[in-house]
């Protein structure tokens, strides 16, 4: 279908908005539902997480997404991954997506690293055979040594992260979504992970990197987005965007306008 036609873009996001409707109760229960009904209240609160964002990312780009906490970065990634459907707009994704949004998702801490590689791979949509083929590579990359056959609850957070990262990058994705995944590895593993990500990008894969470490966005990405309170503030090369973001942080929200740059 679209893969054969001339669509060079890996991800096209058109006027996408997302409004969460969540309950403000800490724990929703029958009791509170009945009490609320008796008082004639509505429990739903709207949060505009992402507002009217549009951009397109060509294949082979490494795009960094920066912004303050709560800017909608993770929400945007979840929408690209198809986990959250947008409230408005349209997202088209051409390619297989692998996510590393949170560490060790689908892992079971009581099981060994080896069993979790299989579980994580199946969670990402590979078949058992494909996982067997990649197993050695994954284990080597994570550098766990004999720990690979120990339960994961005995792992340090860095080891946990190394294995999770290793599983995600070996899923052979066309589009890799990474959210703050490089905070716990040691310096050596960070370098290795950076090299692996660069490697993926040079093979015409696409990468989205959400990070608060602006230096890693500068090093790894050739494209950048800046989100603020759900709105797309700027799109450009990492240096431009980071500079604008830093200026923004210094002068503060009220005094800032993009024209001043």
């Amino acid at each position, binding site marked *: 279908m679209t893969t054969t036609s001339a669509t060079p873009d890996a991800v096209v996001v058109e006027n996408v908005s997302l409004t969460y409707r969540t309950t403000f109760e800490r724990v929703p229960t029958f009791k509170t539902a009945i009490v609320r009904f008796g008082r004639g209240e509505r429990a739903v609160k709207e949060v505009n997480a992402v507002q009217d964002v549009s951009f397109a990312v060509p294949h082979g780009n490494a795009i960094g997404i920066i912004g303050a906490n709560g800017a909608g970065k993770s929400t945007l990634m979840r929408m690209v991954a198809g986990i959250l459907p947008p409230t408005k707009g349209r997202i088209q994704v051409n390619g*297989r997506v692998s996510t590393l949004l*949170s560490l060790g998702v689908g892992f079971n801490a009581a099981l060994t690293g080896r*069993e979790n590689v299989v579980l994580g791979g199946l969670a990402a949509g590979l078949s058992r055979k494909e996982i067997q083929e990649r197993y050695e590579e994954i284990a080597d990359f994570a550098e766990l040594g004999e720990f690979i056959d120990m339960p994961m609850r005995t792992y340090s957070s860095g080891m946990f992260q190394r294995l999770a990262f290793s599983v995600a990058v070996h899923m052979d994705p066309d589009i890799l979504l990474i959210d703050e995944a490089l905070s716990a590895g040691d310096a050596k593993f960070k370098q290795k992970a950076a090299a692996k990500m660069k490697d993926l990008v040079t093979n015409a894969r696409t990468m989205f990197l959400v990070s608060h470490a602006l230096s890693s966005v500068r090093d790894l990405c050739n494209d950048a987005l800046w989100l603020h309170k759900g709105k797309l503030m700027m799109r450009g090369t990492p240096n431009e965007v980071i500079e604008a973001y830093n200026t923004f942080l210094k002068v503060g929200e009220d005094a800032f306008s993009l024209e001043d740059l």
Partner: protein
Amino acid sequence: MNATRTDEDFTSSVHVYEPHRAGLPRLGPYIRTLWHRRQFAAEMSRSNIRAANTNTFFGQIWLVLNPLLLACVYYVLITILRSGDTTDAAERFVHLCAGLFAFYYFSGCLMTGASSVVGGGKLLLNMSFPRLLLPLSAVRTAFFRFLPTLIVYFPIHIAFGQPLTWQMLLAPVFLVLLTIFGAGAAMMFATLQVYFRDTASFLPYFVRMWLYLSPVLWFAEDAPERFESFMIFNPLYSLLGGWTDLLVRGQIPDLSLWIFGVAWAAAAAIVGSLFFMSREREFVVRL
């Protein structure tokens, strides 16, 4: 670009995500993906069972010991209630075992199913897959916890001198119906649990009441005439009644048990899965 599998809706080459109302996903691709990802559900259930057994001393033995002890306690109870009447005592005990084991299988489906979606919170937030895999994986877990008790049932059956008949071969039909019914109920309670977190805490009471209302402690035909016309509204009356009739007594159950068994299983599966699927895209923001 490397070749991707086009048969997979959730990881295939082209996806379009657009807003939706609380409607159903397209069923064709959904079911295909579900089938494609069945290994994941199986592995999830397998690893849960394995993980649950690593830290317990009795491990799988406990799975057998628990319903067996309960069967003994209930046996004493029903003997007291029948004021010491011990006619066909052996048959009653065997019937109690068969019914109780199957009932515990069903309640396992319900309990693990209800917590499957909320318990899988992190997975739901970070991966895109048909959510129906979660309750189905829970049903698989419940089934594998039931299997050892089924194996233990046969020595009991023989030791208490119950006949082996060809009709016993038909019993799996009711087991399949019970599984389908359990899966549908698991989907329904999993969805309810997302919206009302106290579902899981009231479920044990609900299950306990259901046990007493089902032909486990009593034979299906023991039902007093006054209540008999209502009994058919209890799905487990048909499902467990048919199961124990075939397995314990080697009797072909009444036609009505077959019809209502099939009807209840189909209704639960259809209503449960449609309810679940129409709600599943809202789960992420509700967790």
